[in-house]
């Protein structure tokens, strides 16, 4: 069945998953549903400790068995040890058929490929996967369908009961013996625990794993003891060097600086750039450079930002330090400066649900004026792909891309026109993750295209000195340099789905096929 972004979703996939094809970003606006709730084991006694000796004991107490779904968060990014630690124990216990429902997975989890191959893990639901897991899924090694969900989409899936998490594991930089978790302090400081908050609310069993046990009460708690069943202490929950790195040096790459300047020039010429505006940006070189150049103009024109959202990095926290923004709303910290900024009273921790869930009574993304995003590919319908590489391999994550794009009044995608030889602006993206209806502007080093649906923005930019082009012109320039790319040859077998944030099917990911020369 052809969905609203023109993708052919096989009937069989709709049948197996019970999902509907994507019908537009606002299709479910105003719809009503009943939230799911977890089984909760009451603690009335006064024994006073939830401590368990080992992960294995914990798994036994939680009643681990074949076929369970386990929740994990990715605040430790490429420094995470928790997922591998838990899965190794499960593997040693001979448990099979586990589904991992993580907020994201990365190269830190390459080891899981062994468990995918031996049937310990048969389902993966994640924002995306990088590294060897991505390859394994693309090669068809995962028994079940991989589901790629945005950060908001994951919260929705859990709250609606579409996914039931049997046991959630929360890597906690600090925790007390009664389960009060904080993202700050300890040796694996990650700042916030936003993505795991929904796990704590909805999983039947919740386990806190920490390498820094602190005396009760570890307050103010980021995850409350009222939601935690057990606490385990291990030597290390992550590699601090990879959890929060030093702030990236501002780029000196002229290509990125140029795109950043285009972006800033665009932003300041929209009607949304005025006192009290709101803003979110990613961690790419051009995005960070945009924030830096925007800060300069804000100062010159005496314009204040009301709130910034993230995925936070140093340049955003600098805005707070310099008094240029009233508040930061934080779901994740990418560098040490951002982690250290968490204690600032105007730096607020928010849950992934508050951030981006489309099925609650209104999330922060809906209040965004600007979001600056990146993309692997954008097509002439403005559809973006951030998950599947142009070689057909799963290699990225949705993150908050579709959530913020849908919510923000002005969604800007920055990408160099050519990624090596691959045109970033193309006729058809390999897979759609973010629908074109939510993308307003594409900024490249070769020019800027405004979505024709945004005639208002086109009008605003009439007298602005920027290299405006149509999206088709950008594609044609790219193809004139690289030659027209051929379509990746896929196998028929579907290995994963790109789930829209509302739970419908945006696209499917097929098994890759080894390249073979064709023609002469």
């Amino acid at each position, binding site marked *: 069945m052809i969905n609203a972004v023109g993708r052919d979703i096989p009937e069989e996939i709709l049948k197996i998953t019970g999902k509907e094809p994507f019908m537009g970003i606002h299709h479910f606006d105003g719809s009503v549903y009943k939230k799911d709730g977890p089984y909760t084991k009451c603690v009335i006694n006064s024994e006073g400790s939830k401590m368990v000796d080992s992960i294995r004991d914990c798994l036994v107490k939680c009643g681990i068995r074949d076929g369970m779904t386990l929740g994990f968060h990715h605040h430790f990014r490429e420094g995470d040890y928790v997922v591998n630690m838990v899965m190794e124990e499960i593997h040693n216990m001979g448990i099979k058929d586990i589904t991992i429902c993580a907020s994201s997975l990365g190269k830190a989890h390459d080891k899981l490929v062994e468990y995918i191959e031996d049937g310990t893990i048969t389902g993966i639901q994640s924002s995306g996967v990088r590294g060897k897991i991505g390859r394994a899924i693309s090669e068809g090694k995962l028994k079940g369908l991989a589901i790629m969900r945005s950060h908001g989409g994951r919260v929705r899936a859990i709250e609606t009961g579409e996914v039931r998490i049997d046991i959630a594991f929360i890597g906690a930089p600090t925790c007390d013996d009664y389960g009060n978790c904080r993202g700050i302090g300890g040796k694996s400081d990650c700042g916030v625990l936003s993505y795991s908050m929904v796990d704590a609310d909805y999983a039947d069993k919740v386990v806190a794993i920490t390498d820094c046990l602190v005396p009760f009460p570890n307050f103010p708690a980021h995850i409350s003891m009222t939601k935690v069943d057990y606490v385990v202490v291990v030597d290390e929950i992550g590699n601090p060097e990879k959890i929060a790195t030093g702030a990236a040096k501002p780029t000196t790459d002229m290509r990125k600086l140029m795109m950043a300047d285009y972006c800033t020039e665009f932003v300041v010429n929209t009607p949304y750039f005025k006192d009290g505006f709101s803003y979110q940006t990613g961690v790419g070189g051009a995005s960070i450079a945009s924030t830096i150049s925007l800060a300069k103009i804000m100062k010159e024109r005496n314009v204040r930002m009301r709130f910034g959202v993230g995925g936070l990095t140093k340049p955003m926290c600098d805005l707070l330090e310099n008094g240029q923004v009233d508040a930061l709303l934080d779901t994740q910290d990418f560098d040490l400066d951002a982690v250290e900024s968490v204690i600032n009273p105007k730096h607020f921790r928010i849950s992934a649900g508050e951030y981006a869930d489309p099925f609650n009574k209104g999330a922060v993304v809906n209040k965004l004026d600007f979001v600056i995003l990146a993309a692997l590919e954008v097509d002439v319908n403005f559809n973006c792909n951030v998950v599947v590489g142009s*070689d*057909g391999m799963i290699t990225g994550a949705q993150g908050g891309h579709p959530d913020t794009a849908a919510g923000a009044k002005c969604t800007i995608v920055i990408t160099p026109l050519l990624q090596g*030889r691959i045109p970033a602006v193309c006729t058809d993206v390999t897979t759609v993750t973010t629908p074109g209806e939510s993308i307003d502007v594409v900024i490249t080093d070769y020019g800027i295209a405004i979505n024709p649906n945004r005639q208002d923005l086109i009008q605003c930019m009439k007298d602005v000195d920027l290299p405006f082009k149509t999206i088709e012109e950008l594609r044609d320039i790219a193809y004139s340099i*690289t*030659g027209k790319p*051929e379509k*990746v040859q896929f196998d028929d077998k579907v290995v994963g789905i790109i789930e829209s944030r509302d739970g419908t099917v945006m696209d499917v990911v097929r098994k890759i096929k080894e390249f073979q020369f064709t*023609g*002469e």
Partner: protein
Amino acid sequence: MEIKKPAMAGTLESSDCQVTVEPGDGKIDFVLESAVINQYGNRIRKVIMETLKNLDIDNVRITVVDKGALDCTIKARVEGAVSRSTDQFENILWGGRRKS
């Protein structure tokens, strides 16, 4: 033209390609490794075959490790490797247009 000895041109930097030519066994043996093989594999092969044809080479083992090079770079590296294998560095027929 005859490939007399193994020779290589190009690098493994992004946007470049490394081409190795060796004496063949009576035909063109072509091996391609490329990050963009799915999109451009057929095109790269076509460019290489045409370049070899222009150089009048039909007996060669040619190995190309491509890092997203454009056609002009691929041609340059093939010609560069061939020129090294045939020790011809001067009076090159740039574009083959030289009047006799």
